[in-house]
C-alpha cells in the first residue's frame, strides 16, 4: 500500500453517518439529481461544482436529505471564498481596445503605475504615522493617569482601587475597538496577515480590501494597543497597506460611493493584486522600517506571480512609505527633515562593537533557535485549540466583545499583581529611559523593574529588553514575566480586535533570551563577551518570532533592517532556520493555522508530494454546465439564478446535443461577464436597434467591477427570455485546457503559476468533460497518514 487515501470524517457526534462520507456515495448523488431535474426547469444534469457559493435555501436542504452537519474544524473548505481572475480574458473586446490604444497610451499606463505605487507608499506611511502618534498619546494619557493614581494610593492605602482603575481603563479602550470590529467589520479582526496572504495567493476574501475595513482596522488597532493588550500594531499595518493599495489603484471607493474617474484601466483582479502586493510591502516597510524586508515579504507570500518591473515598483512603494513615515515623525518629534527614525517599531541601534559575537557562540544561538521553535509550537498549539473553541462557541458579536474586555481586564490584573509582588528594585537610569517609572514600594530613587516590562507599551518593553545595560533586570523577574506574557499573548491572539502578533512574540523571546544571556554570564564567570544580555535578547526574540510565524527570508531581512546591523544577519538566519525546522516538526505556523481554520482554499507552493497518481479526471467537477455559442437568454438567467449551484465560469461549447453529449469547447465565459451582458441587454434580436446605440466596450465591464450586481437585481421580461445571446465576442476564446489523464501536480503547477480560476478538462476530441477549480485542488493535503481530502462546507 503505497498511497493510502484516507477519508477524513471528523465527526464529533456518533458514527451513525460517519461511515458514508458524502464524497463517495455516488448513488445517492444521482438520486438527488433526478429529484431535482424532475422538479422542472433546471438542467441539473449539466451542473457542476465550479464555484459553489453562499446560501443554499432551507427547502433545498430538505431535498438533499439533510446534509450532514459537523462542528467546525480545520479540515473544511468554505464555499464563500472565490478565486481572483488573475488570468486575462483575451476576448475580442480586449483585442479591440489594445488595437485602439497607441504606443503613448501604454507609456502612460506604465507611468500611472509608478504614480500609484508612490501614492500607496505615501498614504501607507501616513497611516502608520497616524497610528503611531495616536497610540503614543492615548497610552501616554492612560499610563499617566494610572501612575498618578498608584502613587497616590501607595501612600494612602487602597491600591486595589488603582488595580480596578487600570482594568477598567483597559477594558474601556478595548471595548470600543472590539465593538467596531465585531459589529461593523469582522474581517478586520486579527493581524490581517493571513487574509493578505490568501489574497496574494489568489483567493478573493470578501470585504478584505475595502475602505471600511481600513477605517475599522486603524481604529481597532489604536484601541487595542492603547488598551494594554499583549498585541502590536505592526501586523495590521500590512493589512492597511494592502487596503490602501487596492483603493488607490482603483481610483474610487465603493464604500463612499465616489468615483474619481482615474485609473480606470486598473479595475481588474490582475492589476489590483499586483498593487496589493505593493501595498503589503509598503505596510511591512512602514511597520519595521524595513523596505527590503517588505519587498521580500510580498515575494515570499505572492511569489507565483512576479516579474522584475513589478518588484522594482514594489520596492519604490516601500521606500516611499518608510520615507514618508520618517518625514512626518520627524515633524512630530520637532526635528523636521531629520529622516533617521525609521519604523513604527524601532529596535534602536545595536552598535557593532558593544555587541559583537564570536564563532563559539553560534552553537548557543542554534540552541536558542531550537528553544524558540519548541516554544513557538507550544504557542501555536494552544492558540489552535483556543481558536477552535472560539469559532464553535464564541461566535456571537456581543460574546466576542465581552471576551475581549475580559482579556483586557485580566491583562491589567496580572500585570498589576506582578508589579505589586515584585521585589526587584533598580536605580533610576542615567538617561531615564523609562517613560513611566513606578516606584511603589521601592526605595526613593529606585523603580520597580517589573513595571518597566509591564507598565509600558509592548514596543517600549522590547526596546528596553534589548538595550538596557546589564543588571537592569534580575533573572526571577524575567522568568516570571516570560511565563505570564506568554500565556497572555496566546490568549489574546485571535480575539475579535485588530492586533498583530509580532511584538508580543518579540517581547516573549526578548525576555527569555535576556534571561538566557544572564544565566550564561553566571555560568561563565569571565566578564568578556558573555556580558551583554541585549544580544541574547535579540536572538531570543528572533527565535520566538520565527517559531511562531515561521517566516524565513523576509523575517531575517526585516530583523536585520530593524536592528540596523548587518553583522547579525548570519546568526539571525541560523536561528530562524532552526526555529522553523524544530517548530514544523510539531505544528505549522500560526498564520497557516488560522488560514486553515478559516477554511480558505489556499494553494501552497507545491501539490501534496504523494499525489501523482491522482489525475484530472478524479480531481475535476463533473458534469459541467455549458453554454452554447448562441444561447437562449432564458436558460442563462435560469442557470445564473439557480441558488443551489452558483457557478462563476461556464465553458462555451460549439453545440450541445440534446442527449447530454458533451460539446467541443470553444471558449469560457464568466458569470460577471454574463451579468453585464444581461444588464445591457446584448441580445441578437436587438442587434439592429443596438446599432444606433454605442457598442459594448471593456469599460462597461470594468465599471461594474468589483461588485457585480446579483442576478436577482436584473430584470428580464418574458419576451426577452426568448431572445438569443451571442457570446462569441465576449468569451475568452482560448481558455487553458488539460486532458483527463493529467496528474494532479501538473494541474496544480498550471494553476499556481498562471493564477488560473477555471481549468477545463477535455477528452481527446476536445469535448468538455469537467472543470477544475481552486477548491478541487485545495482539498488535497497531506495529513498524518498520507493524502487526505477536505470537505466542502458552508460557513
Amino acid at each position, binding site marked *: 500500500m503505497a498511497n493510502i487515501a484516507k477519508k477524513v470524517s471528523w465527526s464529533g457526534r456518533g458514527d451513525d453517518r460517519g461511515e458514508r462520507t458524502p464524497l463517495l456515495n455516488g448513488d445517492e448523488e444521482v438520486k438527488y439529481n433526478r429529484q431535482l431535474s424532475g422538479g422542472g426547469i433546471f438542467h441539473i444534469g449539466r451542473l457542476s461544482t465550479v464555484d459553489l457559493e453562499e446560501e443554499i435555501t432551507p427547502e433545498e436542504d430538505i431535498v438533499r436529505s439533510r446534509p450532514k452537519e459537523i462542528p467546525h474544524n480545520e479540515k473544511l473548505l468554505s464555499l464563500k471564498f472565490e478565486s481572483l481572475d488573475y488570468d486575462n480574458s483575451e476576448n475580442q473586446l480586449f483585442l479591440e481596445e489594445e488595437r485602439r490604444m497607441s504606443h503613448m497610451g501604454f507609456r502612460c499606463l506604465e507611468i500611472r503605475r509608478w504614480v500609484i505605487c508612490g501614492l500607496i507608499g505615501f498614504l501607507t506611511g501616513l497611516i502608520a504615522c497616524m497610528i503611531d502618534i495616536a497610540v503614543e498619546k492615548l497610552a501616554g494619557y492612560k499610563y499617566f493617569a494610572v501612575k498618578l493614581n498608584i502613587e497616590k494610593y501607595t*501612600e494612602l492605602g487602597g491600591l486595589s482601587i488603582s488595580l480596578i482603575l487600570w482594568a477598567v481603563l483597559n477594558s474601556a479602550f478595548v471595548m470600543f475597538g472590539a465593538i467596531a470590529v465585531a459589529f461593523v467589520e469582522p474581517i478586520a479582526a486579527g493581524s490581517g496577515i493571513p487574509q493578505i496572504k490568501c489574497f496574494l495567493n489568489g483567493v478573493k476574501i470578501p470585504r478584505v480590501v475595502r475602505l471600511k475595513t481600513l477605517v475599522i482596522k486603524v481604529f481597532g488597532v489604536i484601541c487595542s494597543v492603547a488598551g494594554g493588550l499583549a498585541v502590536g500594531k505592526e501586523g495590521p499595518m500590512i493589512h492597511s497597506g494592502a487596503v490602501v493599495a487596492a483603493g488607490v489603484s482603483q481610483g474610487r471607493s465603493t464604500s463612499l460611493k465616489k468615483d474619481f474617474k482615474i485609473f480606470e484601466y486598473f479595475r481588474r483582479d490582475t492589476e489590483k493584486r499586483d498593487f496589493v502586493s505593493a501595498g503589503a510591502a509598503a505596510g511591512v516597510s512602514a511597520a519595521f522600517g524595513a523596505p527590503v524586508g517588505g519587498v521580500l515579504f510580498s515575494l515570499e507570500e505572492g511569489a507565483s506571480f512576479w516579474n522584475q518591473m513589478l518588484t522594482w515598483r514594489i520596492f519604490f512603494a516601500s521606500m516611499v512609505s518608510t520615507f514618508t513615515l520618517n518625514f512626518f515623525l520627524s515633524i512630530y518629534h520637532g526635528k523636521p527633515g531629520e529622516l533617521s527614525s525609521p519604523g513604527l517599531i524601532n529596535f534602536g541601534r545595536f552598535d557593532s562593537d558593544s555587541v559583537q559575537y564570536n564563532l563559539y557562540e553560534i552553537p548557543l544561538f542554534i540552541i536558542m533557535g531550537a528553544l524558540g521553535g519548541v516554544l513557538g509550537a507550544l504557542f501555536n498549539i494552544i492558540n489552535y485549540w483556543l481558536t477552535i473553541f472560539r469559532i*464553535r*462557541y464564541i*461566535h456571537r458579536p456581543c460574546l466576542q466583545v465581552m471576551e475581549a474586555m475580559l482579556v483586557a481586564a485580566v491583562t491589567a490584573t496580572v500585570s498589576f499583581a506582578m508589579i505589586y509582588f515584585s521585589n526587584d528594585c533598580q536605580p533610576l537610569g542615567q538617561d531615564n529611559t523609562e517613560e513611566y517609572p513606578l516606584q511603589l514600594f521601592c*526605595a526613593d*530613587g529606585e523603580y520597580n523593574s517589573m513595571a518597566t516590562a509591564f507598565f509600558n507599551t509592548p514596543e517600549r518593553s522590547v526596546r528596553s529588553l534589548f538595550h538596557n545595560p546589564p543588571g537592569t533586570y534580575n533573572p526571577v523577574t524575567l522568568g516570571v514575566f516570560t511565563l505570564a506574557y506568554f500565556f497572555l499573548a496566546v490568549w489574546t491572539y485571535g480575539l475579535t480586535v485588530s492586533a498583530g502578533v509580532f511584538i508580543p512574540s518579540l517581547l516573549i523571546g526578548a525576555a527569555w533570551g535576556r534571561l538566557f544571556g544572564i544565566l550564561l554570564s553566571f555560568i561563565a564567570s569571565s566578564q568578556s563577551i558573555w556580558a551583554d544580555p541585549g544580544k541574547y535578547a535579540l536572538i531570543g526574540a528572533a527565535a520566538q518570532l520565527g517559531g511562531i510565524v515561521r517566516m524565513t527570508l523576509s523575517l531575517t531581512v526585516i530583523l536585520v533592517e530593524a536592528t540596523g546591523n548587518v553583522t547579525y544577519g548570519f546568526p539571525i538566519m541560523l536561528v530562524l532556520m532552526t526555529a522553523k525546522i524544530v517548530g514544523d516538526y510539531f505544528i505549522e505556523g500560526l498564520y497557516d493555522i488560522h488560514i486553515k481554520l478559516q477554511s480558505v482554499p489556499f494553494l501552497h507552493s507545491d501539490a501534496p508530494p504523494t499525489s501523482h497518481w491522482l489525475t484530472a479526471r478524479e480531481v475535476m467537477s463533473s458534469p459541467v454546465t455549458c453554454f452554447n455559442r448562441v444561447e437562449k437568454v432564458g436558460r442563462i438567467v435560469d442557470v445564473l439564478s439557480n441558488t443551489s449551484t452558483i457557478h462563476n465560469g461556464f465553458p462555451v461549447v460549439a453545440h450541445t446535443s440534446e442527449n447530454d453529449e458533451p460539446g467541443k469547447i470553444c471558449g469560457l465565459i464568466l458569470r460577471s461577464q454574463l451579468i453585464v451582458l444581461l444588464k445591457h441587454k446584448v441580445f441578437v434580436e436587438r442587434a439592429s436597434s443596438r446599432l444606433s446605440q454605442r457598442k459594448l466596450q471593456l469599460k462597461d465591464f470594468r465599471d461594474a467591477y468589483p461588485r457585480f450586481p446579483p442576478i436577482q437585481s436584473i430584470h428580464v421580461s418574458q419576451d426577452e427570455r426568448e431572445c438569443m445571446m451571442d457570446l462569441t465576442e465576449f468569451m475568452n476564446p482560448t481558455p487553458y485546457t488539460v486532458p483527463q489523464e493529467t496528474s494532479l501536480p501538473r494541474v496544480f503547477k498550471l494553476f499556481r503559476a498562471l493564477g488560473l480560476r477555471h481549468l477545463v478538462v477535455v477528452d481527446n476530441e476536445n469535448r468538455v468533460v469537467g472543470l477544475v477549480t481552486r477548491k478541487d485542488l485545495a482539498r488535497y493535503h497531506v495529513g498524518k497518514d498520507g493524502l487526505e481530502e477536505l470537505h466542502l462546507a458552508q460557513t
Partner: protein
Amino acid sequence: MELLTRFTFVSACLFAEWAVTFIAVANCSISPSEMNGDSALKLPSAVIPVSQKSTLGSFYSLSLSSTFPEDLEVNEYCTELLRIYGQRYVTFANCLVTYARPVRVCQNCYTGFNSLEDIYKNISFDKSAPGNVSCHDSLMRSDRLMLLYTLFIKLDEIWTSAECKQCLNEDQDALSNDTLYFMATLNQSLSCFEQYQRNHTELCKDCKTSYKRLNEVYGRMEKNQMLCIDLEDAMNMTQHLWSKNFRCLLPREETVPVIAVSSFMLFLPIIFYLSSFLHSEQKKRKLIHPKRVKSSSSLMNIQDKFS
C-alpha cells in the same frame, strides 16, 4: 542617578590624574627652549615619578642644546599667557579633585572654571598680539597634539556633563537662588535626621514633612532643568539615607485586598468560558456534496487498485 554620580566621580579622578601627568610632560618639553625654570609649575609631588618614568630623558638633553631661529620661537607675550593658563588649569583641576566626593564641584569650582575659560578665550581670540604670529596659532595649532586645546576641551566636557551651569545664575558668577533654596531645604531635612538619629520610627514620622518638601522642591527643579550634579548627588545621598539607612519605606499592607480583587478578575473568564460552552449553541457547518465523475473512478476504486 547614582550611576551618574559614580561615573562622573571616577572619570573626574581619572582625568585629573591624566591631566596633571600631561602638564608635567608638557612642561618638560617646553621649558628647555623658552621658559625659565622658575616659572615652571609647582607640580604635586605625587606626579613627579610619572614624568620621571618616561624614557625620553636622553632626548631632552639633546633638545636642550638646540634652539630655533627667532621667528619660530614663541614670543614672550604668549609665554606669559601660557604660564597663566597653566596656573589656572592646575587650580581648577585641583579643585575638581578636592570636591569630587561627595560632589561639590559646582558650588566650589565655578570661579576656577570661569577664570580658566577666560584665559582660554584670550588665547583663542588673541588678535592684538605683537608680532606676526598670533598666540592662538603658535600655542594651539603648531603641533598635532594641540595640547592646550585638548586639555581645555576635556575639562569643559566634564563641566558640561556636570550641568553646573544650571545651578549658577545668569552671569555664572554665583549660585542661583533656587540652588540656595534647595540647599536650605536640604539642610533642614538633614538637621531633622540628626535630631532623631536614635529612633528610626520616630524619624520616619517626624521628618516626613521636611523630606517631602525637599522632594517637592527637587521635583520642581528637575522639571525646570535647574539641577546640577551637586544637587543630584546630595538628593541621592539623602534618599539613600532615608530609604536604606533609616528604612522609611512604605509598608506593603494591602496584600489581601489586592489578592482578592485579582482572583475575582481571574475568576471572571473562567465563568465566561464555562457559560458560553454550556449555553452557547455550537456552530455547525453544513457539508456540501460536490459533484464528481461517476463513482467508478472515485478514490475508493483507486485505493482498491493500489491495494
